[in-house]
């Protein structure tokens, strides 16, 4: 499973749990009770993070929190540069997103292009009151004017490095791994 043999963990299971608890509290604080919050995870791992955040928010507020998923594949700006990707599920909660506070949830914030695509996708689904962004790791190197509202961990990286989030639901364990690109130039030792 772990292809980065020399990858080192920067966040472990308990860290991820604490970080998500903090983000949940921040959402409640900023949204003044999180009454109208809809959490939308970006597949694959954003969806699991959104579910976990929803569970934490429900603990804090005692209300049911709507959560779903938003597949951005068809809105990507690099579609023409790769073979078509398999689509993932878009699952919008029953009440829709019109007039709600949508919090997009993703694992890693990098170039910002995924989030741009997500904003486009949202546009076709409804008109939220506001859109915010929660990410587990912000690794920098933005290529678009996009920033996260809630960040689990700021992780300064070089472009030669890779950040890999593993979650129990998909990978069997919770961890964030910082590795080196196998084919990165200058990596030949």
């Amino acid at each position, binding site marked *: 499973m772990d292809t980065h043999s020399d990858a080192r963990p920067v966040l472990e299971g308990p860290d991820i749990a604490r970080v998500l608890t903090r983000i949940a509290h921040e959402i409640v604080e900023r949204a003044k009770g999180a009454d109208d919050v809809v959490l939308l995870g970006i597949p694959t791992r954003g969806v699991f993070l959104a579910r976990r955040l929803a569970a934490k928010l429900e603990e804090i507020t005692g209300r049911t929190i709507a959560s779903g998923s938003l597949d951005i594949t068809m809105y990507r700006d690099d579609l023409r540069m790769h073979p078509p*990707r398999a689509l993932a599920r878009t699952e919008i909660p029953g009440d829709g997103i019109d007039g709600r506070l949508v919090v997009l949830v993703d694992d890693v914030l990098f170039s910002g292009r995924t989030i741009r695509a997500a904003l486009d996708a949202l546009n076709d689904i409804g008109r939220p009151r506001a859109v915010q962004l929660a990410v587990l790791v912000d690794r920098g190197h933005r290529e678009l004017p996009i920033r996260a509202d809630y960040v689990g961990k700021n992780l300064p990286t070089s472009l030669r490095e890779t950040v890999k989030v593993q979650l129990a639901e998909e990978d069997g364990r919770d961890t964030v791994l910082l590795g080196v690109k196998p084919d990165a130039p200058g990596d030949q030792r």
Partner: protein
Amino acid sequence: MQRHLISAADLTRDDAVLILDTAEEMARVADRPIKKLPTLRGRTVVNLFFEDSTRTRISFEAAEKRLSADVINFTAKGSSVSKGESLKDTAQTLEAMGVDAVVIRHSASGAPYRLANSGWIDAAVINAGDGTHQHPTQALLDAFTMRRRLVGRDTGLGRDLAGRRITIVGDVLHSRVARSNVDLLHTLGAEVTLVAPPTLLPVGVETWPCEVSYDLDSTLPKSDAVMMLRVQRERMNAAFFPTEREYSRRYGLDGDRMARMPEHAIVMHPGPMVRGMEITAEVADSGRCTVVEQVANGVSIRMAVLYLLLGGNEPAVTHARIEEK
């Protein structure tokens, strides 16, 4: 690298399942207030229809528009384009206009293959029915309908139709739908039985990957899905069977026959139906008949095919057999 969809027989099991899974996600777009995706923005698709068609053309057009492609409809009815040379000229005209894909329906079997492999045109070619040869998107939408009904919408994801028993009844001789379905259903692991009067079965049917029967009543209890084919009245001057009444009595599906099918079995029809001929109104209007569902699924399947062939820099669909030598 093949980037056309000419025959259902060209699809591998994995390709077919990928198309069905993609269609499942495409189907969800139909439930949204804005039924549009930007995926094929700036791509031009020509619907080149040399033969009458209502539902297939409209279905392709809806699929293309939902993916934001630019659509050009070319209806060649009444012109002399059915001659080989003219197809070439038409193709070169389209090539000069810079089209990215051609959806072609032609009365001559093999016309889409010719268009794809002649070098006349650089665009992807999608067969929307050629003569009595193939109609691959129809087979895909039928398989999609079966998987949804017999396996389940969500539980079906990633799965094929292994072990399902499908019966196809009627004019197999003239039916490209039957040919495509036999090929695709076999690839997906289903067991296909063709039921027809001997005169309406093609020569060489024994080499197809399916069973053949002349007796509908004995086949029905062993069927998970029964697909009725239209009796093509326009061809009946060739006297393939004595009278329409006799055909209807032996090979038509009525309420009594439907009652002999297993509880979960569905009735399918590619349309247009001839009520009172191969299917009675009682069956056609029952909840087990999926005709309307098939039409809705057709748009999703065609969106999936267009996305997988045109959405990236190269097609996601590989091909089982290489056509060009």
